[in-house]
């Protein structure tokens, strides 16, 4: 069953995430994929995340595909103009990659090449619309292709950044442009997330797209504090920080926290699945899946 079929049927979706290495070592991805295979429905492959040059997301997605894991290729607008975006998408489709997550991309200032020219020829909403247009058989030039790709289109949403209502409008626009599923930023503030979901359900947006809530398991209080201070748009409730501070075994507490968040998320109306982002801690995925009783049935 492909991710598309799973989204169309009404089952609970679990996605993972792998960051490619800053080298040409494909084995890094092969090894990481073992922690996800058989546990999750699909795995995101990040595209030069935080603007740091890495092994390309297309190549990494192909490696995952060969390992028998369904990839969700991330595509950002920071590094490519509309020509490169479309050609990369066609290349990905030819390699058998079926899912693409459309992002604007972090600003190059935050990465290892702050001197670089940021492209931003399209923005994420226009990118979604571009992929949707390609799915219908056309390029942005209006050229009709002999064979059209059939991408499942994903997009991101940040329920935690200001202004709150603008986030809903932006989600509305992404769905309007053609997003089939939405992955949110990691949830560390359930109160605010529930409020956001209530607005989403009120507007009926949850019926038009599959909303997958982000969950990020953390190993230590240091990671949490770093995220709170350095990662824009991430809100972390003080309860979590205190819990991690007082924990005897921070790793176990981190797993416990992730499991609790997943279980709460499962009970929220409109949530179709979760997106697990074990940044630099991929090996914990099977434990979390088992403890949260998300074990796969395929």
């Amino acid at each position, binding site marked *: 069953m492909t991710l598309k079929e799973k989204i169309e049927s009404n089952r609970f979706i679990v996605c993972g995430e792998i960051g490619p290495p800053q080298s040409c070592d494909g084995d890094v991805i092969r090894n990481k994929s073992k922690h996800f295979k058989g546990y999750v429905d699909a795995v995101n492959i990040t595209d030069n995340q935080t603007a740091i040059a890495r092994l390309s997301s297309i190549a990494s997605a192909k490696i995952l595909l060969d390992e028998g894991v369904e990839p969700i290729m991330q595509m950002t607008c920071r590094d490519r103009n509309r020509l490169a975006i479309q050609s990369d998408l066609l290349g990905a489709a030819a390699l058998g990659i079926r899912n693409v997550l459309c992002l604007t991309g972090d*600003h190059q200032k935050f990465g290892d090449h702050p001197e670089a020219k940021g492209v931003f020829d399209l923005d994420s909403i226009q990118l979604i619309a571009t992929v949707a247009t390609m799915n219908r058989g056309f390029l942005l030039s209006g050229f009709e292709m002999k064979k059209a790709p059939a991408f499942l289109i994903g997009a991101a949403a940040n329920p935690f950044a200001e*202004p709150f209502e603008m986030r809903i409008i932006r989600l509305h626009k992404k769905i309007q442009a053609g997003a089939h599923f939405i992955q949110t*930023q990691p949830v560390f503030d359930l109160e605010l997330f529930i409020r956001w979901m209530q607005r989403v359900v009120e507007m009926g947006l949850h019926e*038009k797209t599959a909303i997958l809530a982000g969950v990020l398991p953390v190993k230590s209080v240091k990671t949490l504090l770093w995220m709170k201070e350095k990662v824009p748009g991430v809100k972390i409730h003080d309860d979590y920080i205190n819990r991690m501070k007082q924990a005897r075994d921070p790793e176990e507490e981190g797993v416990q926290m992730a499991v609790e968040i997943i279980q709460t998320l499962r009970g929220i109306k409109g949530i179709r699945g979760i997106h697990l982002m074990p940044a630099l801690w991929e090996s914990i995925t099977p434990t979390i899946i088992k403890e949260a009783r998300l074990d796969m049935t395929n």
Partner: protein
Amino acid sequence: MNTNEIPLPKGLVTVNDPPLTARERKFSRLLLFFEDIVKVPLFGCQHCGECVLSSTAFVCSQRCPKQLRNGPCGGTGDDGSCEVYPERTCVWYKIYFRSQLLNRMSLLYKINKVHNWNLQGTSSWLNVFRKRIEAPIWFVPHDEQKVKGLIADDAERED
């Protein structure tokens, strides 16, 4: 849920229609001089030639470091600061609150087209006159009902 039925926005890209002639470019430069006198001090115009000021409550979206024409990125701070230049206010934060103030919220739901870089540095007044780009929307009557309508329309389409 059928994932194939989501409608596409019409006219995704601003195309070269009619194409800019050399003569028109010259004239455009002259017109831009006058456009600048108004738009640079008032809005910090970036000369994209494809002005969307009327849909962004008269705050120039091109001043965003990512030049986002369709809403803020995920990095707006709690105090409304820009993630790239924290000393600045996120332009989309301004756009949102100005739209609220001026009752222009329904325009925030509109998907702005992909920028035509051929028009960069040309006069958008001329481009509006030549119908390359959409004319500005000066008045938005019944803004609140329009927003409600936009949301209800989608609900209907789904049924």
